[in-house]
């Protein structure tokens, strides 16, 4: 009973998480019209849709007795992507036929003509098959004008990457956001994890006065919310920036070109902020991992003559890879997805905006272009997924196997 319940709950969680993702990806791969007119769940099954096609182009004026062609070829000739395929169900006939009630007169009718049935188009006989082939025959050679017909097609699912191409290559906003996000995220992951690894080793294995109290202080810093610290942090950065501006003015001749001003909001300020707020958790996690490494291993290294630094670099780091990897994923995700810190402390220049801010701005510009918005969102999501998958191989079980008894 509890097992089934567990499975149901698990399944529910998976569905809740996966459905929006599928919606996002699907929508980003559909055509603009499709994403506007129907929901993403209709994208996977054939849907009956109306398409208008021309029998031939206007510049073909050669008279003919019989012309054959394919509805799909005609349709897709005007498209770069999202080619229509499927089965032609019917064509809407709209025209005048002899009126049986009123001899000698004609009347206007609208009627669905199905595959194989002949219909009169501009005096010729027009027959189509469900695979789209049609034959249009006249009694004598005629230079018929092109006719636009409405075909109802049971259309196969069709996907295309147009939205991605548009988002990535049409203008530089998304590529710039990608680059900025990397510029922010990579140092903001590497810097804290490096500092934290050193600190964690010290807290775990070095003896110094007040060690445990200091550790408690560091860990308790985790409760300080980032938002609370915005004001003082910003003040600090603007102080540094104005100091740097004066230094710049004094050291260089920037006054001539009026380029003395050093921005207080920059990539560097983001690195510092993310490092500062990431460190307590990083130290806490890594220290708890490193303190669990077998004591004999470190003692053995001490007898072998290793200094603290050598123990750290040659023993602790290789053996802490799983912990380092899991924290880097945490930190990478947090920084990559961070909107608020970047908004307040990050660079304000449009070319330097990070991805979450760019997405937020696109909400305004692409309000009714869901496929573009979703394509950007997928691009921003795919990076952490790649990072996660590539880090996955470092989550090695039994890394300590063979070192100590039972290890």
């Amino acid at each position, binding site marked *: 009973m509890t097992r089934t319940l567990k499975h149901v709950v698990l399944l529910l969680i998976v569905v809740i998480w996966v459905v929006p993702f599928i919606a996002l990806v699907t929508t980003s791969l559909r055509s603009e019209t499709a994403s506007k007119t129907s929901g993403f769940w209709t994208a996977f099954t054939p849907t009956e849709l109306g398409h208008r096609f021309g029998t031939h182009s206007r510049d073909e004026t050669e008279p003919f007795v019989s012309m054959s062609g394919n509805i799909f070829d005609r349709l897709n000739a005007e498209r770069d992507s999202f080619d229509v395929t499927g089965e032609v169900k019917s064509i809407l006939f709209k025209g005048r036929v002899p009126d049986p009630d009123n001899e000698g007169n004609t009347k206007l009718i609208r009627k669905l003509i199905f595959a194989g049935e002949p219909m009169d188009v501009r005096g010729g006989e027009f027959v189509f098959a469900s695979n789209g082939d049609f034959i249009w025959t006249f009694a004598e050679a005629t230079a018929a004008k092109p006719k636009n017909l409405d075909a109802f097609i049971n259309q196969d699912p069709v996907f295309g990457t147009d939205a991605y191409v548009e988002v990535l290559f049409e203008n530089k906003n998304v590529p710039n956001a990608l680059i900025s996000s990397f510029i922010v995220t990579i140092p903001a992951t590497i810097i804290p994890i490096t500092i934290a690894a050193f600190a964690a080793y010290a807290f775990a294995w070095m003896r110094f006065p007040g060690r445990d109290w200091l550790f408690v202080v560091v860990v308790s810093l985790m409760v300080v919310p980032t938002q609370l610290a915005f004001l003082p942090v910003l003040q600090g950065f603007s102080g540094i920036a104005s100091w740097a501006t004066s230094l710049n003015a004094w050291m260089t001749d920037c006054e001539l070109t009026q380029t003395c001003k050093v921005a207080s909001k920059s990539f560097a300020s983001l690195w510092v902020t993310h490092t500062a707020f990431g460190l307590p958790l990083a130290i806490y996690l890594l220290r708890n991992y490193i303190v669990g490494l*077998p004591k*004999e*291993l470190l*003692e*053995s*290294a*001490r*007898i*072998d*003559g*290793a200094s603290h630094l*050598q123990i750290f670099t*040659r*023993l602790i780091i*290789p*053996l802490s890879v799983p912990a380092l990897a899991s924290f880097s994923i945490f930190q990478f995700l947090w920084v990559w997805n961070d909107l608020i810190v970047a908004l307040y402390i990050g660079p304000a220049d449009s070319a330097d905006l990070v991805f979450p801010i760019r997405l937020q701005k696109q909400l305004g510009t692409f309000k009714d272009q869901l496929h573009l918005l979703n394509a950007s969102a997928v691009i921003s999501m795919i990076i952490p997924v790649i990072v996660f998958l590539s880090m996955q191989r470092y989550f090695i079980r*039994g*890394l*300590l*196997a*063979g*070192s*100590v*008894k039972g*290890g």
Partner: protein
Amino acid sequence: MAQVELKGVKKSFGKTDVIRDVNLQINDGEFVVFVGPSGCGKSTLLRLIAGLEELSSGEIHIADRAVMDLPPSKRGIAMVFQSYALYPHMSVFHNMAFSLDLQGVSKAEIHERVLAAAKILQMEHLLDRRPAALSGGQRQRVAIGRAIVRNPDVFLFDEPLSNLDAALRHDTRVEIAKLHKQLGATTVYVTHDQVEAMTLADKIVVLKDGEVMQVGSPMDLFKSPANEFVAGFLGSPKMNFFEGELTGGAGTDQGHFKGEGLTLSGVRLVSTDKSVGDKILLGIRPQHMTLDSDGLLKGRATLVERLGTETVVELLTEQGTSFRFACPEMLDIATGQDVSFSIDAARAHLF
């Protein structure tokens, strides 16, 4: 001349004294075994020599150098841990080469010394493997190899065999004994297993509650234990003790004993502070009693264990003291049977 010398060594953790005033001399090339029950401080004493713990007071000299202020790596020691403590991310070769590499020894020399050590231990074929791919016995050999490579003045072994199964333990024990003969290096070996102590040691140091009970060769300790603890600790099955009274010979080394229906004279008297009439313990090993229908020591068998090579009978005297009798013959003593023994005063002890 002493290779390792401990003078007034004391160690306390907080208010608990773990090692109280240990004085000890270990000679060059000697195989010394620290033995005692768990918690007696034998491992701590080893770690003090290694430099992994700091002395509370006292002096330690290794190869005529005071080493109290030296880090472990500068003391000229190498240690083999109970848990092997191999570096799991390095191959066997690099495990063994680690210390040399840190010393900045040249690549060629490292190669040579590791190969030499591997040859001694017959594990050249294991050099490329990771510790995870080795069996328990092989891991232990790598740990020993790591110690050999350093070419130390003193080898320290901290219960190296207690993680191995019984058969392997015996083989490795024999191997360690051979190795010691081959290398001739001073060795300090910690164990709680008296069989290991008796078979390996040139000199046994029996410890209890952080104090040295007795130091001596295995046979000295076996034949003339300095106190009840040493007598009871060494030998299997355990020595029998009977309560009684000292009836004569106080102050000499030969005492007279009366108790449990026994009257013995000329027994080795260990305690010098007892006077006639004091309560005293008679100790006799289970193997040193003889079946004798006229014997004065009577008991009723409560349990008979036949081990094939030996028969061990557990008995109870009329006074309710339990004791054991061991004999290499197959005996047909049944549980509940009354048995009499005579005791050779020359092989008994008075504590």
